[in-house]
């Protein structure tokens, strides 16, 4: 059990660092989605399945989706200009 807890903590730390280190917003939305999933697994491991469900639904699906749609609109406004990223 302690192995599971330590590894899920390390996974959350690694995924969180990965979100910060990803510079391209498009890639970042996908990495943030993965981070939301990992965070949900952590809540589940710590016996909070109610919170885990909310976290996975919002953090892994809804939030990245809104970011992706907003990015699509920003790109449509700015055309193919890549310098303002």
């Amino acid at each position, binding site marked *: 059990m302690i192995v599971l807890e330590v590894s899920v903590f390390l996974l959350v730390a690694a995924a969180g660092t990965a979100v910060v280190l990803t510079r391209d917003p498009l890639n970042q939305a996908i990495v943030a989605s993965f981070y939301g999933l990992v965070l949900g697994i952590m809540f589940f491991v710590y016996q909070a399945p*109610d919170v*885990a469900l*909310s976290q996975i639904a919002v953090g892994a699906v*809804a939030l990245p989706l809104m970011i992706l749609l907003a990015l699509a609109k920003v790109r*449509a406004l700015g055309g193919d200009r890549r310098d303002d990223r």
Partner: protein
Amino acid sequence: MTPALRRRVFLVAAAVAGALLVWGLTGLPDYGVYAGPYGDVLNQVAVAERKAANVVAAVTFDYRGIDTMGEEFILFAAVLGVAILLRAQRDETEQPPDEDAADRHAPGTSNAVRVVGLALLGPVVLFGIYVVTHGHLSPGGGFQGGVVLATGALLVYLSGEYVTLRRVSPELLTDLAESTGAAGYVAVGLVGVAAGATFLANVLPLGQPGMLLSAGTIPVLNLVVGLEVAGGFVLLLYEFLEQTLVIRRPGEVT
């Protein structure tokens, strides 16, 4: 401020914040040790008192039902705010989305995405309904199930086209689901007042714990919240898709 100086300021701030964090962590109770009496009391009395197998639901939709009403209206207000912000502005025009226009051609969805999306749609909607309706029995409830249900709308868009989504779930119906869900929570609360008890009092028959029809008003509240959350998220999806696909500014690249 030069980068070197900035880095030094950051390192000092990070060291102070880190020290405070470690100091705070050492003061935490040990893992698995629970000090407060409330959780223990709830674990002992909640199932017997409210016949809800999921004590978390008994807290969020009964003992602390009014907090959840506030939470529901936070989401309602947020969706409303997004809808107002993303409406078509004066200098913007609405055009048919690329896939609907004769002179433009949108890149088609790959067959793999279509097949997987359509295959997932049924199970996702069923799972959403299950999570909403079993909130008082097992983890889940209106909020989680509502988002799962809204994911169904996303799958329709991903595996079909924007126009398919509009046909499957018209905006009027979505608006109605969201507002009925929000008003329904207050209505269930007023039932308590009408029955001579307090606002949001659990006045419906409680039944036996573990049964689908049990825990009085808790499953009803889960239903209305599920309706509100699903409607709200689909509405959010609409507003963003409309901004991305339909509304154009003069000179905007599509």
